[in-house]
């Protein structure tokens, strides 16, 4: 019963969405989707967010209680959480308020810092990938050099047709493999959806059966 009812809800929801995908009728597009489904999604969102916040607080609370490694950082979570919440609740979330100031001057720079690290990690990953240890890796290296050089003026100086070759690499072998993956992903997605719809895939209900 504990699994049957959720399963029935999932199957019923799935069938309705299959109908929604195949039917443009007003009952499905307007009455079901716009007037029923979307408002419920919006209405349930804040409750789920509340659950998320409670979970995060509990996790940090447990860390502090257990004196887990680097437990002191959990206080930073509480400090950030309380300050940002108060800034939002008291001063509002509009531009010019404290919350937006925190967002623009604390969160954005930190996010940008994390993002900028990506460049170094990419270089490191590229080094690993382009080490010409096999024929495949060598092909990869050559293709990468051609594509990268074609992006800069120096590449055209070296050989005027480099952008054409680069575009060919991107349009033909690269796109072919991407489409191959896309077909696989698409079919996998359909198969997974179908498995859920037919009740074959139940592991998402927990326990794996």
């Amino acid at each position: 019963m504990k699994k049957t009812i959720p399963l029935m809800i999932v199957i019923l929801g799935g069938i309705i969405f299959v109908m929604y995908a195949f039917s443009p009728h007003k009952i499905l597009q307007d009455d079901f989707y716009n007037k029923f489904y979307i408002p419920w999604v919006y209405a349930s969102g804040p409750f789920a967010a509340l659950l998320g916040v409670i979970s995060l607080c509990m996790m940090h609370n447990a860390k502090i209680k257990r004196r887990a490694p680097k437990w002191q950082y959990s206080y930073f979570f509480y400090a950030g959480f309380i300050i940002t919440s108060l800034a939002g609740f008291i001063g509002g979330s509009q531009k010019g308020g404290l919350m937006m100031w925190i967002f623009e001057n604390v969160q954005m720079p930190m996010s940008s810092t994390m993002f900028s690290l990506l460049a170094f990690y990419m270089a490191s990953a590229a080094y690993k990938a382009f080490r010409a240890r096999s024929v495949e890796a060598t092909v990869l290296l050559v293709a990468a050099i051609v594509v990268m050089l074609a992006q800069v003026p120096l590449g055209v100086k070296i050989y005027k047709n480099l952008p054409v070759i680069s575009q060919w690499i991107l349009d033909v072998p690269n796109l072919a493999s991407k489409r191959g993956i896309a077909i696989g992903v698409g079919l996998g997605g359909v198969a997974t959806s179908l498995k859920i719809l037919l009740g074959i895939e139940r592991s998402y209900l927990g326990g794996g059966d």
Partner: protein
Amino acid sequence: MRLDKRRLVFLLLFVFVVVSTLIIANRQEDTDQYVVKDFRVEDVPADDGSGLLLSWKPLERDKRIIEYRVYRGVSPDKLFFLDALPVNVKTGVAAERMFYYDNSGSEFIDIGSPRKLKKEKQQDDKSPLYRKMPRNIPILAEMAGKFSLLSMMDKARFYHTTKKITLDKPSTPGPDGKIPDEGDSYAGLADNKQTVICFLKPGEKYYYSVVAVNERNKFQKHAPITEGTPVPNPPDPAQALYSVMLEDSRTLQFEWDLPLYKDDLAQYRIHRVPSLPDTVWNLLRSNPAGLQSSTEVIAQGGIGYGQLKNYTTFTLPEAAPLAAFTEARYSLELIDADGMSSFSPLSTPKLKTTADLPPKAIFRTEDKPDDKGDRLTVVWDNPICFVVKTTALNPKSTKLRVNYQLNKTETQKVKNIYFEFFKMGETKSFAKLKEFYQDNSVILKVPTGYDYRKGFRVKITLEGTPKIPADYVIEQDLKYDPKMLAIMPAKALYRNGIDVSSISNVVYRKTLASPNLTLVKRNTSYDNNLDVSVSYSTMVQKPVLGFRFVKGDSLITILNGERSARKVKAGDVRTAVALMPADIDLVYDKKNETRIETSIFPEIGVKQAKAKVEELEKQLSELNAQKASLSDPAMLAGLEKNLDRIQKQLSAYRDNPDLKRINSISGRRSRMRQIAKLREDYSRYNSYQVVRTDGKGLFNEAELLKSGEEIDYLKPISNWFYKTKVITLIAMILFCLSVVILVGMARRGKDLYIRPIAGLSEIDNAVGRATEMGRPIMYMMGSAYLSDVATIASMGILGLVARKAAEYDTRLIVPIYNYITMPVVQEIVRESHYAVGRPDSFDKNSVFFLTDQQFAYVAGVNGIMIRERAATCFYLGTFAAEALLMTETGNAIGSVQIAGTDSSTQIPFFITTCDYTLIGEEFYAASAYLSRQPMQLGTLKAQDYFKLVIVVIVLIGSLLSSFQITTLNEILPLK
């Protein structure tokens, strides 16, 4: 670090400096407030007296202003927030003055307004500035007389939620000399169930101010409170009047361009004026009252606030000499709703014949396929194909990509497009191209030795269904454009040899209940159809006539500006409500050409119908009595017309079956359900007309579509099935069938081979490694939502990983990106622990929501990874830029990493940094591979076979396309 005396002093000093700086800066700012200068409130010219124009000099850029807030009130002591004009803080306002038009509806009652009267932020007690008008009927009712109010509400609210408010029995007799049994009834609706929009009233005084707000959200001092009064003005004259005399049919055709503000234009008149110089006319027309006697009105009609037709015709009287009309000049008088008018400059008629008119449009109206029933298509031509641009494909421009556009409806199918290219001035084509697969471009090889800059002529013919006539030819000149440095199409578009580029196809609509046609859209000659929206009724609009509310023990009613009060009695509605008419249109009686109205309250509806019949019968008998005494034929004809109209109304209200049926239902809800069905249905019937015009008096009007004498009205139909998705449905059914067959085979014990997937085989080892090392496992599910298939697939794998981890008593940490996913994931992990008999080892805090900010999530995950020294990391789901940041960190701490994703852009990063990667479909196969259940394996196998079918279809399609057979391409959906 120890806090000794020296450090304490230093710290206190530091705090003192910071606090003093902040206080000084704050005070400095207080003394340096910026007030908006030269604030003016003026009447909007040429309007109906419902608009005021506010203007002021904006503050300099260095004041860092982010917005100007406009406040309005009906008295100078209370101004409410009206609107905010955002300003780019970096660029400021470049213009000398800023303008704000208060001439459209603004919120009077809105769900977002405060419940009580609330002072604006940072304002002292003396400040007249308040936030938005409060959503509080007792306060608003006092101001309501200064505005025209319109309520907008969800139709269900009006149908079912409105309260019946009946006024007290009047003490004075009504127009019929009798004292009615009870007062009038209105529909009352509470403030939280509607939005009321207010419009300025002509002649009323309004007070305004403007406040600048800087980027620190600091409100500056408000501009001096300035009053303004909107007044009705004469309309602007028509921008142009075009007149054409069709000599052969002795018809004058007039067409005009309306001025910019046309919302109050009610009527037009065409005046015949003796031939006068423009200077004299300009003097004369500045005094319209004196003009009436010196001109002759030859045509007149309605403008309908700019929605009705902007053209008319006048047939010359038989005896009138043609010269009297060709030598005269004409002016258009525009008359607004207040009766004020303006005259256009004089127009001299051009002499033409009917042969010069654009051909009459042959059009049809059809239901748009595959929609929810809210669109119709008006089609007036075959599919139209034309060149939009060309691009040189090599430096010498010997090869050109010619981009074309094909305009057609969903029901028109074009099989082939034929392009013939000619050198300029030659009649023999040098290239003939057949476009069998329409990808909006063809490649043209320029003949050797021909200078492409001389240009080309292209002739386009089409083949398709419904059958396109063989003589239907579109031609264009392609000329070298020195600015674009490319061959571009010239302006002219020849359709069967006639340049149609300046001809518009104007679509007008006629509803069932209206005698007039209203403008839908002006279309160019490059369009052959128009999708017209016929939306479903969702809202009801009603004028607000007054308010009723309880204050203390008094019941106060304010209606049409009159206030009355009495003690509250038992049975009175105590909720504060806005009052609006309870009438609603029911149906259009086609036979009697009458729109029937009823009340939303059943008993009033019945009474109203009865009273209406009695009133019409009385009118009819009075008119019949008058008829006997009339002898003048003109007056008699007028009376007959009136009699006929009243007789029809009487028949409609007495005999209409729908009205009878509705009035026989006593329950409000069921009656309203029937009313809604009837009124929402008839209002969606429309008929259309297409008018071809050059915009300068040469127009040709097609007839309305008719069946016999009856006009054809069409209503869009809500379709149950997307016809374009037939193949998708068949494919889905085939896939389902193959799943069922293979699952059955697997159940019967047939061994289904699945190729080994290294990443999945290693999951056991990876979990085992973490157990041996005594370190946790981390599982990242990606950044997609719960509704994403990748997340659900990942949940399937998580269930199995969690089970293994629980069996080996290894800690599993799952930081969640999306909070909606979190409870589901917690449940999966909990169930896995229970399934292997280890409920004690389940720690709810190991599955937690981290954040839904991309890089904050990375920072969190990386921190946990390093602190906990995770032995194994799984990345299964949809990932973006965060993938590499996490996997590189995992790599650095020596974790075994298994990744799987459907994000093709992240696969290379996973391959380079992880030990095992599941690419695309392998990720979706993981659940089946790990569980080895026959049902799952059957699905996986079906997936593989279906992939084979797709590959075969791709190969066949490629082969057929190579031989110009595109049937397969056409039947397969694009997306």
